[in-house]
């Protein structure tokens, strides 16, 4: 059980929750959250939006979609929430300049990814592309950590993305967008994509979140959610 420090809407239906937590967590990793007894039955996966080891604050950014996220949105400071994790493998530690592409709620893990990268490689540059269908949200904190932030509303963000010599790409968003990004970036750039699948266990035992890779099936929860572009086999849908 962890204690909630704050939980409020940053936009209609988009919430930010800060939880007291300390430990090791890599950008792109996720937690299984629950703040209810047995209804809904399963815990819900959420990736780390931000983490400050000094104050022991873990931040989630989430959209209210159904019963679970609705219940989460009704919590307040000092309420308890169950955090199980961190799970999975996050984004790798890269040494080149970075391009980061987020679509909708896919922006969630990218803030911590950029912050962590900048902390480790002060001289390297990060350019961030954030794409939204209707309204933007959660852009401000990116302005504080990235060298350049490009916001796009409506349209297709992957068409706007430019990748320069020697840059590595991180992406997170709907799986169709991840595929478009995989196709759009020239082969010589390493591309790391965070995928989304419905999950039951979140720990690699139910095999409900398998994706096809060149090394056979892998689980998004345990082997991912971040995969290298060339590992993934998209044919037949993820």
């Amino acid at each position, binding site marked *: 059980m962890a204690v909630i420090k704050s939980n409020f809407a940053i936009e209609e239906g988009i919430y930010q929750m800060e939880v007291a937590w300390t430990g090791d967590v890599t950008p792109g990793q996720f937690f299984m959250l629950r703040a209810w007894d*047995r209804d809904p*039955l*399963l815990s819900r996966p959420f990736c780390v939006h931000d983490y400050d080891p000094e104050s022991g604050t873990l931040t989630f950014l989430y959209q209210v979609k159904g019963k679970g996220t609705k219940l989460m949105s009704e919590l307040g400071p000092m309420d308890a929430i169950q955090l199980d994790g961190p799970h999975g493998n996050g984004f790798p530690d890269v040494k080149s300049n970075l391009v980061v592409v987020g679509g909708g709620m896919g922006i969630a893990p990218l803030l911590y990814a950029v912050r962590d990268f900048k902390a480790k490689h002060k001289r390297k540059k990060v350019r961030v592309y954030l794409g939204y269908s209707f309204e933007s949200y959660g852009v401000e904190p990116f302005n504080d950590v990235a060298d350049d932030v490009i916001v796009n509303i409506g349209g297709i963000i992957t068409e706007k993305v430019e990748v320069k010599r020697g840059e590595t790409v991180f992406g997170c968003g709907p799986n169709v967008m991840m595929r478009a990004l995989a196709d759009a970036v020239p082969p010589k750039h390493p591309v790391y994509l965070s995928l989304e699948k419905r999950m*039951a*266990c979140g720990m*690699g035992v139910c095999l*409900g979140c*398998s994706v096809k890779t060149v090394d056979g*099936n892998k689980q998004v929860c345990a082997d991912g959610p971040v995969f290298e572009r060339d590992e993934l086999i998209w044919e*037949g849908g993820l």
Partner: protein
Amino acid sequence: MSGALLTNFAGVPFKNPVIAASGTFGFGRQFEKIYDLSEIGGLCTKGLTLEPRPGNTGERLWETPAGLLNSIGLENPGVDAFIENEWPHLADIDTVTIPNVGGSDLESYVEAVSRFNDLPVKLIELNISCPNVKCGGMAFGMDPEQAYAVTKAVVDESAHPVMAKLTPNAPDLVAVAKACEEAGAAGLSLINTVQGMAVDIDRRRIVFDNVYAGLSGPAVKPIALRMVHQVVHAVKIPVMALGGIADWRDALEFIMIGAQCVQVGTMNFVDTTVLPDIAEGLETYCVQHGLSNIDEVRGIL
């Protein structure tokens, strides 16, 4: 531990009657990081087939009120890879590892089960009840004659006792249970998942590529109780009961109606320590009620 939970199932001793259900526990490695597997009576492996299987395409999970629909489709590395990579590790753990074996025809069942003949396996769970693979699986568990044929063929070739895992989707479950007993099964486990379906109105699609999927979790418990009750009264071989068990009280319900052991599946996803918690809860119950063994309340209803 007082010994109150020591349970004999078809000649196999279990330190307690609480066992992980197939497909919800992998090969134990993930749970080993959370608790000592010697705390639980046993574990059933993910369903194993002769050849590796990639499992089903499309959506594989869909939550329902108090339940879970799955269409995994027996994704597994194959019996040989299991024996090479997982068995040596599991064999060192002080718990009963029960390989769960599936097949698509008589030959593949027999061949897969016989791969275990030279290993010190104590019990094999024969999966004749998976609703998620088109070829075979559940087809064998639907009909008493087919269930008899596959169980007999496997029992004849297996060096180890065989427990047949039954499907609640069989039109006459009791007849299937009796057929398995007659074919030489040492025990039965039930229930596998209840066939169900889901529709995604937003995408205007049937959720699963395979159309139908298997329902598990607390939603199915009353059905499982009824079926276990019917079966324990119809056969003499022991029954491992499962379907929706979430805590020690649920486990005790099944034991009171005559289950020798219980398995827990879906709830492992919800609460990762549910298995040792149930064992502990049953132990406490025995102590509090002055039972020297849980057998004193087994089958009292």
